[in-house]
């Protein structure tokens, strides 16, 4: 199964948050070694999808297969083993340890999971930091870094154990254009150099289209479009086009479903 062309397969997944249905029979596959951007309106549970792939959330029904194994049914030990070697995730707020400096942050997974001697860990950490261009910040603390730098350090940390799959949760949010350009380059570069499977959750249509091999548009608990950016932009699905072009109204209504407006207004007098 591991040599299948799909790294992650999501089959018939249903997921509830409280009583609200987030996913209803979601089916999608993410090809190995490619960058796939998961896009969709806010609140559709894109981050939830990443967390299900990482095993942090369990689907209420259906399967999430990574390398052919069902993440939701794995034992705790197997799940931690999988995350340790095979997966990396870059969080929206980066999740850097604020009480450790940059060097120790990147060294954290290496020190925890390996018995490598100190000088080898040092070399590895410096290599990872060099890859994100921040070798010079090794003694600084996360609080002293800019938002873009924090995200790059977090990226260095998530690739410290050389994962096969890396997930980015909103990597472009709140960055200035220069930092954004750097992150874009890094994601592309890492993918090309290491052959990583990259999953990317984002709202930024333009940036995502620039680097993603495939787009996966999620709305209303289902995948409404999957394909290369060009395919989708020229496709015949109105909702996908509305999203990619950013039209305010269309198949996705401007108004959240509510009862009749006039009736609602008059109801206040009663």
């Amino acid at each position, binding site marked *: 199964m591991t040599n299948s062309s799909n790294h992650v397969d999501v089959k018939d997944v249903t997921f509830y948050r409280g009583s609200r249905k987030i996913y209803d029979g979601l089916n999608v596959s993410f090809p190995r070694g490619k960058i796939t951007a998961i896009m969709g309106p806010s609140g559709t549970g894109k981050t939830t999808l990443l967390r299900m792939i990482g095993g942090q959330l369990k689907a209420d029904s259906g399967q999430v297969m990574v390398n052919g194994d069902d993440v939701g049914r794995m034992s705790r*030990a197997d799940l931690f083993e999988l995350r*340790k070697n095979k997966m990396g995730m870059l*969080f929206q*707020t*980066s*999740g850097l340890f604020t009480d450790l400096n940059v060097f120790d942050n990147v060294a*954290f*997974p290496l020190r925890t*999971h390996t018995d490598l001697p100190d000088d080898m860990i040092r070399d590895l950490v410096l290599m990872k930091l060099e890859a994100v261009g921040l070798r010079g910040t090794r003694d600084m603390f996360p609080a002293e870094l800019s938002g873009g730098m924090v995200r790059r350090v977090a990226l260095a940390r998530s690739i410290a154990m050389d994962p096969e799959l890396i997930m980015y949760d909103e990597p472009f949010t709140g960055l200035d254009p220069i930092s954004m350009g750097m992150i874009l380059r890094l994601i592309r570069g890492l993918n090309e150099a290491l052959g990583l499977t990259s999953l990317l959750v984002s709202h930024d249509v333009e940036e995502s289209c620039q680097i993603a091999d495939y787009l996966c548009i999620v709305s209303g608990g289902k995948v409404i479009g999957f394909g290369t950016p060009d395919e989708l932009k020229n496709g015949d699905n109105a909702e996908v086009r509305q999203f990619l072009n950013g039209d305010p109204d269309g198949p996705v209504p401007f108004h959240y479903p509510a009862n009749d407006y006039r009736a609602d207004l008059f109801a206040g007098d009663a």
Partner: protein
Amino acid sequence: MLKYVRDLGKTGVESIQSIGRAGMLFGQSVTWGGPGSAGFLDLIKQIHSVGVRSLSIIIVAGFFVGMVLALQGYNILIKFGSVSALGTMVSLTLLRELGPVLAALLFAGRAGSALTAEIGLMKATEQLSAMEMMGVDPLKRVITPRLWAGMISVPILALLFSTVGIWGGAFVAVDMLGLYDGAYWSNMANTVEFYDDVVQGLIKAAVFGVVVTWIAVYQGYDAAPTSEGIGKATTQTVVISSLAILGLDFILTAVMLGGV
């Protein structure tokens, strides 16, 4: 009317759920070992941050409480002509009650709230999630050493509180009120029992330590990951653990004295 009943039921179910979650958290994090478990050095670091850093407040508070006890006790006992029992009164009050209880209350305010805020913030900034995704179990890495540090620190703090308090009492009784110091110390040594008073006080303190730290880490771990949520959790820690200390104190005292 029906709404109130329903709300009451909902609150009840939610609190039982929350107790269940707290129990699971304790069960999963009280033992060492597991993916990316914390080491001995982490325990040392945590004892430093919850124990050593609470030392100054414990010592200052203990000294003043001891002095006040001696002053009040002197003025009461002198009416019955039994000032010689002052040492006994001060030491028993401290060892049996005030040492464990006040040390635990101060610990809850000083270290418990800090623990909650720290863990809540780690959760809000996705440090715990990031850890999990690196194949490190945050329960074992973050919660376990903190839980143990609290359980180890509170008895020590309570003991230091009582010790400083007894010497503070001696300072007032002997140096300020002019009581014969032999009377203060020898009556104390005659009445205070090592097992009944010192050890039982320590048992109380150990129980308080477990409960306060447990409440603190649970509140942090379970906090809504927003600044409002963390603020609420911090307050909850202080309120719940203070009530827990006082309630448990009664239960433990009743069990130990065998009176009820």
